[in-house]
């Protein structure tokens, strides 16, 4: 009883192993079956989470935009995702003429598979993890690359010039924003001394967001750009390129892209919590893994809420603004942050408080110099010409203003 309360998932895993061994199977097969069932369960649970996330997103989005959100179907609109899913399941699959069947059908699978595979290395508690890779962070980056491949195949397999153009722009954005993401991921690796996610969580006696706030900010921004959420959602905007690379998909295949998008948003919040907010750390989480899981979910929900707020308040970037933001701001900033943090960290390793204060000072210096540089760039740009448009019907006492012609 005691072990079931403190560690229900571990209890279930041990019970499952004992059932399998009771069937007198060879040991390798027992381990293989247990891993396959575990992977299947984790993937199913994460996909079921998306159902709840759809409701959360639409309700909170509605409230941010001063409207109610779904409230017809069920109490507080809770059955709305079920209605959405019924609609998506029953739509017809229309395959465009001349589409390459392999690429067209493989695109959505790779796009969703890449996101679910990230969940295999995330530590949910002190003993709750899929697999403890010692190169966990590189694995996450590799899996992100597979998602990019899925988008190209979707865009090319649609046999549609606009889908192809959308796929090109999507891949340009995804490949560009991988660079600051990877460079800023070096900082938790440096602090923890290992690339395994479990070791990074264990090394966070002080959460890494305190030690490296700029790196956390860069990681958050580039993860949102990797996902393709607003304000970086040029890839799938209706008004931009007619929904981009997934214009020829209908029914459940489009539903796959949709699910992958929402799950990726939650996965970003999860990774940020694990890497920078301390993961499952908290009072009492060392002895009771289920408490660690609860702490992680609380932190993830906070970051997910922050992502939703950003999504529903900021307008969309243009493609050239997005790429300029990446190559002119984020990449130099992340490189400078990594080098300075590496130098300072080696010098101030001894006392934890000295380390915190010195690193915060370094980050403050970087931030202030960034502000100064941006201010000078802003001041040196020529001011935009403004035109005074006349009113259609001038008021009684208002003089009619002629539009100023700009100086030749």
């Amino acid at each position, binding site marked *: 009883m005691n072990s079931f309360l403190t560690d229900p998932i571990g209890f279930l895993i041990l019970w499952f192993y004992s059932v399998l061994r009771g069937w007198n199977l060879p040991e390798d097969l027992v381990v293989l079956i247990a891993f396959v069932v575990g992977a299947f369960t984790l993937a199913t649970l994460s996909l079921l989470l998306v159902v709840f996330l759809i409701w959360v997103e639409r309700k909170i989005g509605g409230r941010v935009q001063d409207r109610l959100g779904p409230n017809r179907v069920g109490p507080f609109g809770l059955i709305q995702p079920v209605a959405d899913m019924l609609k998506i399941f029953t739509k017809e699959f229309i395959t465009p003429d001349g589409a390459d069947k392999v*690429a067209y059908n493989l695109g959505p699978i790779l796009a969703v598979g890449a996101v679910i595979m990230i969940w295999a290395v995330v530590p949910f508690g002190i003993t709750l993890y899929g697999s403890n890779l*010692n*190169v966990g962070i*590189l694995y996450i980056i590799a899996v992100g*690359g*597979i998602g*990019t*491949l899925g988008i190209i195949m979707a865009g*090319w397999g649609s046999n549609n010039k606009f889908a192809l153009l959308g796929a090109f722009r999507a*891949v340009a954005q995804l490949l560009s924003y991988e660079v600051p993401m990877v460079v800023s991921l070096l900082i938790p690796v440096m602090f923890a001394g290992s690339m395994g996610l479990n070791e990074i969580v264990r090394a966070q006696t002080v959460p890494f967001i305190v030690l490296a706030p700029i790196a956390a900010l860069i990681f958050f921004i580039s993860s949102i750009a990797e996902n393709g959420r607003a304000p970086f959602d040029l890839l799938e905007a209706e008004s931009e390129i007619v929904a981009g690379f997934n214009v020829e998909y209908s029914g459940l295949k489009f539903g796959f892209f949709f699910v992958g998008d929402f799950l990726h948003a939650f996965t970003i919040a999860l990774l940020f919590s694990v890497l920078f907010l301390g993961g499952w750390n908290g009072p009492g989480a060392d002895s009771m893994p289920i408490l660690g899981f609860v702490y992680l979910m609380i932190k993830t929900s906070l970051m997910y809420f922050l992502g939703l707020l950003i999504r529903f308040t900021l307008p969309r970037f243009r493609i050239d603004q997005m790429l300029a933001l990446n190559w002119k701001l984020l990449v130099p900033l992340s490189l400078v942050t990594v080098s300075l943090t590496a130098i300072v960290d080696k010098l101030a390793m001894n006392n934890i408080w000295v380390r915190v204060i010195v690193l915060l000072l370094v980050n403050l210096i970087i931030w202030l110099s960034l502000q100064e540089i941006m201010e000078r760039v802003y001041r040196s740009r020529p001011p935009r010409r403004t035109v005074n448009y006349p009113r259609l019907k001038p008021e009684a006492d208002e003089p009619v203003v002629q539009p100023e012609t700009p100086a030749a």
Partner: protein
Amino acid sequence: MPMQIFFLIIAAVTLISAAMVVTVRRMMHAALWLVLSLFGVAVLFAMLESSFYAVVQVIVYIGAIAILVIFAVMLTRHMMDDTGRQIAKNWWAALVAVVIAFGGMVVLVLSWSRFQVGPGTAPSELLLLDFGKALTAPNQFAIPFEVSSVLLLAALIGSIFIAVERKGGQK
């Protein structure tokens, strides 16, 4: 026994995908088969207990090089249009030469007894740390490391310079 069966399956997948790369007619399918064979190579690296290079293979080859190849296939599509002969006229001569080379090397490999050994002790967990220290130690591998970064910089600048279209059509 199960590891041997697994190895045979992965090796078969890798080699068959490699064979499809060099024989299929449509270039896009060749690029997709290349992705599959590179993934098979990554699984082989993982079986050889080199998890670092398995993941780096996926990042560098599949996540960057394969995407670059797919882009090149898409941008140069209109001339070939996947019709006509894909393979040069004297392909049987190349096949004979390659089969002779393969046969010779296999005979060489199987005839030396030291190749039949099994795996020794597994690499320790701290090898990655030692590798990192070796890459920056001045008496070990710091110079190849720096030279390879200069090579990447040269490739970056060179390929941008070659591929950028000059405004106004000047070359």
